């Protein structure tokens, strides 16, 4: 294969990887504080992307011109909207389920995801059709043989890396991050030590949801299109990535995100039949991985005690 073409695949894989990693980090944060899987995470991403689109319609109607300013406003709108949504979900749907079997929380959030997805489809104007997502980043590209480097891709990738580094600094270095880690370690002890458990949980869910919104906006800008169904597959991929990395571990989630993108890329390039089988290949590989390492590549924090 041509070096340029190979480079193109690698770049594409990195772009997917950074978006998957952002989604997976959300899954792993939620699992960290409450030991639950919030499957609706992918659909929160969809809500974020559509919030951004609605905000775009709003600001252009107001006559705003500068693409950077517009981008800033719609990203903030998406972040704010989903952060509030995430906190509300945590407060009214997930916190009341503490003590219920974990599988019930998974079922609840699976249904919540369906409800969010269907709400976008039914209540967003003309929501069942794919929507154009505005191009707000500078166009143009540098060409090296068959390798094309779009400037907007570079910006998206850098933004993604910055966000993930920011979140991991927040978790590992800040006082708030310390509280989150304390709750993740042992919620009861953290509560006894004077940490406001509910506040930490709500903040974590707001943070994770905001991450999903950003991933949704980035995904929209990369493909220039969004639809009500986008969160289902992205959520499942993020969930898989968090799981193959090992739940509750941020670095595992990031690793899982890039690993999944790598699997898809390998599937697209190397499969003899057709690149259409790339998702089949990636999910099959994930299932095999789970058979080999049932609790992920970086093992889960706790084990059962008798």
């Amino acid at each position, binding site marked *: 294969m041509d070096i340029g073409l190979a480079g193109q695949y690698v770049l594409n894989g990195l772009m997917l990887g950074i978006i998957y990693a952002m989604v997976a980090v959300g899954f792993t944060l939620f699992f960290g504080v409450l030991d639950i899987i919030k499957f609706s995470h992918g659909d929160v991403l969809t809500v974020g992307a559509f919030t951004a689109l609605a905000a775009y319609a709003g600001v252009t109607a107001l006559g705003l011109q500068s693409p950077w300013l517009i981008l800033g406003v719609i990203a903030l709108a998406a972040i704010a909207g989903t952060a509030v949504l995430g906190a509300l979900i945590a407060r009214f749907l997930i916190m009341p389920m503490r003590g219920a079997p*974990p599988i*019930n929380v998974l*079922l609840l959030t699976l*249904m919540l995801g369906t409800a969010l997805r269907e709400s976008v489809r039914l209540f967003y104007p003309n929501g069942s059709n794919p929507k154009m997502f505005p191009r707000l980043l500078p166009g143009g590209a540098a060409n090296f043989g068959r390798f094309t480097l779009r400037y907007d891709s570079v910006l998206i990738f850098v933004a993604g890396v910055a966000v993930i580094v920011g979140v991991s600094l927040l978790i590992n270095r800040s006082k708030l991050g310390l509280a989150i880690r304390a709750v993740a370690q042992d919620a009861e002890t953290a509560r006894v030590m004077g940490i406001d458990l509910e506040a930490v949980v709500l903040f974590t869910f707001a943070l994770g949801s905001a991450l999903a919104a950003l991933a949704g906006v980035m995904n929209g800008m990369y493909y220039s299109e969004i639809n009500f169904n986008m969160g289902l597959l992205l959520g*499942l991929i993020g969930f898989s990535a968090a799981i193959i990395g090992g739940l509750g571990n941020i670095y595992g989630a990031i690793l899982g995100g890039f690993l999944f993108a790598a699997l898809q890329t390998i599937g697209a390039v190397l499969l003899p039949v057709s690149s259409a089988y790339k998702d089949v290949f990636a999910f099959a590989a994930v299932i095999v991985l789970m*058979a080999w390492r*049932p609790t992920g590549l970086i093992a889960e924090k706790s084990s059962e005690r008798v």
Partner: protein
Amino acid sequence: MGALRWGVGSVATVAVYAALFLYAEAQSVVIGLLVGAVVAMVMASRFDVLARVGESFARHERALDRLTFAACIAVAALFHDQHFVLLMLATVLLYFVACIGLNLQFGHTGVVNFAGAAFFGVGAYAAAVLSQHTPVPHLAIIVIAGAVAAVIGSVLIIPVLRTRGHYAAMVTIAFGVLFKTFLEVNDTLGGPQGLKLPGMSVFGIPFNANIALSDDAEISFYMHYVVLALLLAAGAYSLSRRIERSWIGLNLDAVRLDETACATFGIDVARWKIVAYTIGNALCGIAGAVYAMMTGFIAPNNFTFGDSLIMVSIILLGGVGNPRGVMIAAAVVLLLPEKLQMIQEYRFLLYAVLVMAVLLFRPEGLLPRRLRAYFPGGTS
């Protein structure tokens, strides 16, 4: 307590109600019937009727099971010349068979399976391929389709056995999505357009021909499928009951409730998970095969993750582990959007919200399972 008349009364009431509901055309009548049902349920639980009905079913189970079977036939006979109603009835019965399978996995053994629609689809595609390209008799096709679903399911056995909780859920969700994507891109299996199937023919009886009663009266050809589906449903129900009311059912419950504790009492956790998983997937495959031959056309869109979630919803709404509850929930979940046109578009949203409410406020389901009685009513 436990008088037979309460059970008989409830079966008769439900049958009459179902007939009225299926007859109703005007939306106002449908809504009226629904409101009536809700009011009746509230009154019934208020005045202890539900408890009496439950006692009656526990005591006279065998008689009431037969009565339920007869009531199904009576309702179908009432609509003998209406294609669409019979098609709906058969679909409800086939979904019931599949959900009994998933209920054995999830409700009894605690093995989650979010790929129910995929195993239903495996059976459907197996039936399509076999009926188009081979002369295998159609009844045998149903059995083979169940076996194929069980075999394909066994590919997942190692990850399903080795993983627990969220990890196991992810494996089956991934398989469901993988399956549908595979169908969409595989041209041999028709791609997104899907496959066509010939109608069934059993012992020389063509299932897709109407039955003439006299010169001007006919029975819809769908009656064949209703009868077949009813027999399968009765078989699945009886299988599920026999499993529940034996040491096997006890082993499945023990595995679900505490794997470590039951291993220290000699229970082979892996064996019982495999048994439940295989039987469950086979039932999904069997149901899918009949469904495919009945509708004559299948496509990947019939077997999505959303459809798997509908199956899980049926189990949760009906009462985890309770086959009777599953029957009622299957009927409600599948018939409601067909009769109430205004909610057709909103049905996924509606069920999602309903199931969330059940999980939050009544996690054991609307009709929770009763304690195991190995030999109810003293009969064997």
